[in-house]
């Protein structure tokens, strides 16, 4: 097994304690940082996402895989920065106003990071103005991802999108939405660019929307 594959296996299996060391070893052996990122991190998280989608692994296993990935990213980031490498994209994420649920939103954030994005997580119960503010502060952001877990807070997704339209910034970003009660039909109705039903699909969708 090559060092990069060892890194990928450690991330997939959530071996939080050994990932940083393995990444360093891979770098020392002359592996390219972007290869470690693409295969060892992003590739491994794609496998994890797929397993989660197929009900082969449980939420905590996905969480520790993401934690393991973060340990690897910490070692890789300074190397990539020195090489002038950029994240594949930047994305704003948040649970909409009135909704305090964060577990699903956090999973989505982790998986999207796992796909190579830099995620700006605004947290939960985020008013529409705050999304717009963040978009203005980060003009290079290409995607805004909105989450809602309750049928009662789903309308806040629509309100947020309407506010983004009213602010004149709608054309600068793609908007993706998700959460337990959210459907593709709802996404079409409120004018979102995409919907995904779980965290793994969300990461795939983000990559696709960047297109």
């Amino acid at each position, binding site marked *: 097994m090559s060092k990069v594959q060892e890194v990928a296996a450690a991330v997939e299996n959530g071996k939080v304690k050994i990932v940083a060391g393995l990444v360093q070893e891979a770098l020392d052996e002359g592996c390219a940082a972007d290869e470690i990122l693409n295969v060892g991190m992003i590739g491994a998280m794609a496998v994890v996402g797929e397993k989660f989608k197929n009900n082969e692994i*449980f939420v*905590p*296993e996905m*969480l520790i895989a993401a934690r393991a990935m973060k340990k690897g990213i910490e070692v890789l980031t300074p190397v990539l920065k020195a090489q002038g490498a950029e994240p594949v994209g930047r994305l704003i994420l948040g649970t909409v106003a009135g909704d305090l649920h964060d577990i699903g939103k956090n999973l989505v954030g982790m998986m999207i990071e796992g796909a190579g994005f830099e995620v700006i997580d605004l947290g939960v119960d985020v008013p529409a103005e705050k999304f717009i503010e963040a978009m203005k502060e980060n003009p290079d952001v290409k995607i805004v991802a909105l989450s809602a877990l309750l049928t009662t807070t789903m309308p806040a997704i629509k309100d947020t999108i309407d506010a983004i339209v009213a602010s004149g910034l709608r054309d600068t970003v793609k908007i993706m939405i998700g959460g337990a009660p959210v459907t593709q039909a709802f996404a079409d109705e409120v004018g979102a660019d995409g919907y995904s039903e779980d965290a793994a699909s969300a990461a795939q969708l983000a990559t696709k929307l960047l297109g």
Partner: protein
Amino acid sequence: MIIIGEKINGSIPSVAKAIAEKNEDFIRDLAVKQAEAGATFIDVCASVAPEIEVETLKWLINVVQDAVDTPLSIDSPNEKCLVEVIPVCKKPGLVNSVSMEGNKVDTIFPIIANTKWECFALLSDDKGIPRTAERRLEVFDNLMVKAKQYGIAPARLHIDPLVEMLCTSEDGISMVTTVIREIKSRYPSIHVSGAISNISFNLPARKLVNMGFVCLAMNAGMDSGIFDPLDKTLMGIIYATEALLGYDELCIEYIGAYREGIIAAPAVKK
């Protein structure tokens, strides 16, 4: 949870037969299966006539330690027998058991004083099994005086608060849980143990009572027990309870035990 695997006990008819026939394969199989299920100690109890207990226990010890690396729990009501078999063990294990009856403690503690052996201790004394929590804690205090005297650290002790059958108890297990909580508050590193199935003696569907008991006892502070690690439902309840008590971050141990096939939900009959 510290698991003391109970399956190699001469009071179980199939094991008694294997002992009588010196059937090594039978004993070895029980040892391997319990080790694979995650037993911390493998108990060996001869339950034979006193004149052949030492040789029988030595035979059991050798069969088991040749088969697995798991430390042994050497189990005999006779402390003199325990003293004779300790040197046969390749690595330190658990002496099962002492109490404040007779000379048990003064016989065993000096021998294990400067070793890594652990010791199972019952809260009874020459007056029998105390009827109240206060009296049991008195016996416990007397035991800890001895432990201190011989330099046995609390973390090496497994205290059995003595669980008696539920069907004749007047207060369920509230007296026992009071004792457990008090012991753990005085010595946080001490282990509280016991045979899990005693509670359900003479009741139907005993497993249900055992499972309810183990949750409540663990909630009070029990962290060690003598039971069958091949019982996947009981093991599942124990792993689940540890997660519920917050000892298993992200339920990783629980999920791991599930993946390894150590735990399983009981089949639902309709």
